[in-house]
């Protein structure tokens, strides 16, 4: 196990290196450079001086080597726009994004598995049909439109929920206030994983239910709950867990949009702002953060996979 983790950590490090180099190259080949240099209030001479100060006039490989040298020691530079260290900027926002994506993922998984199981057990019933069509709509609905429709319904028309932000202005504590702000973005963000996981859970359960060992369990007189919960579900979950590896990056992508609609102060909105203003250090910092998050989540997925399926062992 520890040997496996070591190999995976090395692979992760190589992946980080490749990703950082590619993104660095893409970002630094931008025609025009960062937005702060294109400010019409700054005269060209000063802009030139700023660029020299920031090291932007050096060849790209030199800049990359310098960035890498600092990044390894945990220094991701300073944001051009916000004028604070990138590490601090990201650290401030990470908890917000984790709250949002974590809640969305939990909602998705907790709703998708029971729905998928019920659909599979009651195949071709009204429940199954509704859930299947619902899942189709769920994977097809544009996240941002669903968000806008939620705002129209729950904020504009009914006035039940706040449409933007994470806390009411002036309120700094209190879980209730946070929860009221969290409901809409979390539900919107959970739609895609919920629908996708439900489809997988259903088809996987349908397949498992036709297996001999399920029939054996039924034949030896186990209660339907025991057959489902112990014998079938455990095996049906294996493919579902593997899909999580694909869903987590999608969730982070979805967070970019959801955070923009609901003005949620997380990494996603920071990413859009940084991309538009070409805030190089922030873009690089976010790339690394997301890559690390995804690598860690994939590793956790694999570990979960192994603990569910004793036929597979980690090498």
């Amino acid at each position, binding site marked *: 196990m520890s040997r496996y983790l070591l190999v995976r950590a090395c692979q992760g490090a190589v992946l980080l290196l490749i990703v950082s180099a590619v*993104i660095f190259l893409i970002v630094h080949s931008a025609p025009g450079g960062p937005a702060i240099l294109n400010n019409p209030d700054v005269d060209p001479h000063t802009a030139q001086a700023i660029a020299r100060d920031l090291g932007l006039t050096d060849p790209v490989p030199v800049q990359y080597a310098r960035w890498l040298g600092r990044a390894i020691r945990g220094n991701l530079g300073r944001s051009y726009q916000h004028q604070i260290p990138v590490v601090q900027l990201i650290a401030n926002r990470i908890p917000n994004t984790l709250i949002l994506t974590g809640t969305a993922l939990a909602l998705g998984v907790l709703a998708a598995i029971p729905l998928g199981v019920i659909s599979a057990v009651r195949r071709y019933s009204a429940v199954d049909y509704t859930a299947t069509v619902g899942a189709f709509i769920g994977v097809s609905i544009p996240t941002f439109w*669903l968000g*806008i*429709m939620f705002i129209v319904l729950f904020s504009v028309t009914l006035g039940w929920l706040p449409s933007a932000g994470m806390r009411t202005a002036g309120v700094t504590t209190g879980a209730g206030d946070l929860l009221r702000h969290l409901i809409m973005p979390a539900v919107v963000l959970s739609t895609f994983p919920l629908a996708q996981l439900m*489809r997988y859970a259903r*088809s996987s359960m349908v397949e498992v239910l036709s297996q001999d060992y399920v029939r054996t369990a039924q034949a030896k007189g186990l209660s339907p709950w025991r057959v489902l919960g112990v014998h079938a579900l455990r095996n049906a979950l294996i493919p579902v867990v593997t899909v999580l590896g694909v869903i987590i990056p999608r969730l*982070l992508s979805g967070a970019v949009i959801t955070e923009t609609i609901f003005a949620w102060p997380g990494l996603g909105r920071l990413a859009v702002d940084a991309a538009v203003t070409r805030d190089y250090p922030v873009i690089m910092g976010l790339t690394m953060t997301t890559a690390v998050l*995804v690598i860690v989540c994939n590793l956790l997925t694999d570990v979960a996979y192994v603990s569910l399926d004793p036929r597979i062992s980690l090498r």
Partner: protein
Amino acid sequence: MAQDAISPALSPLAAPRGRGGLAVFWNRFRRNRLAVAALGFLVAIHLVALTADALAPHDPAALDLLNQFADVSREHPLGTDEAGRDVLSRLIVGSRVSLAVGLLAMLVSVGVGSVIGALAGFYGRMTDGILMRMTDGMLTIPTFFLALLVLAVFGSSLTNLILVIGLTGWMVVARVVRAEVLRTLPQEFVLAARAVGASDGRLLVRHVVPQAWASVIVAATLGVAHAILVESSLSYLGLGVQPPTPTWGNMLSGAQQYVWTKPHLAVYPGLLIMLCVLGYNVVGDALRDALDPRASRASIA
């Protein structure tokens, strides 16, 4: 071909061959009434997009500042937007960009995915290892962030948009084609072609890759759905097709500013995006079921 004698249900993703095969396939597809309805909708919406200029009752870019947020009338069946532009005309003309970007991006994905999948499956060993690790890597990075970044850096022209969406969406096709190539390579007709001295290139292009068409069509159909979604999301963030060219995505982005006063403006474009994406997803899923009734699993789309 011997495959015709076997029940299509038994051969893995067998492309039903000849007229008889197509009829069998169509009969299976037709039984899925939801899919037939979806196909009908898709045909209709593409016809609308093709004839958009003739169909649109008004110039979609014509400003009429005295007539902002006009109500539904005979002149403006869906009213007008914040600049007095006819909403119906903008929806009709907007369909063209949204669908064209979806289809062209899908073509890019299918092209790149097929080449990568074919090379990986055909040459195996190192080539396969490197190409498939690359594919896995692409599947685990949040590609939307990458697309966003590239567009912000290089500007969001129509070409860039299509390329970016296409180049971040080829992974499923690559996997599908590779699997099909691996399945086809040991078959007799390939061995026969090789025995008479066909070159690698000819073998791949003439004999092996065409076997994958059925699976590729399924992946491509689901790929269009994905591409339309991504295009609209990027346009919504202001990084897609730029105004004044109307697309469903940038119409929504405009409508969001007026969501407190004119919420209905945000409804139509989103509904159309959803219906198109839903249509492609339903048809793609039904195609897969019709081509291979055994594999009714959900896809990684």
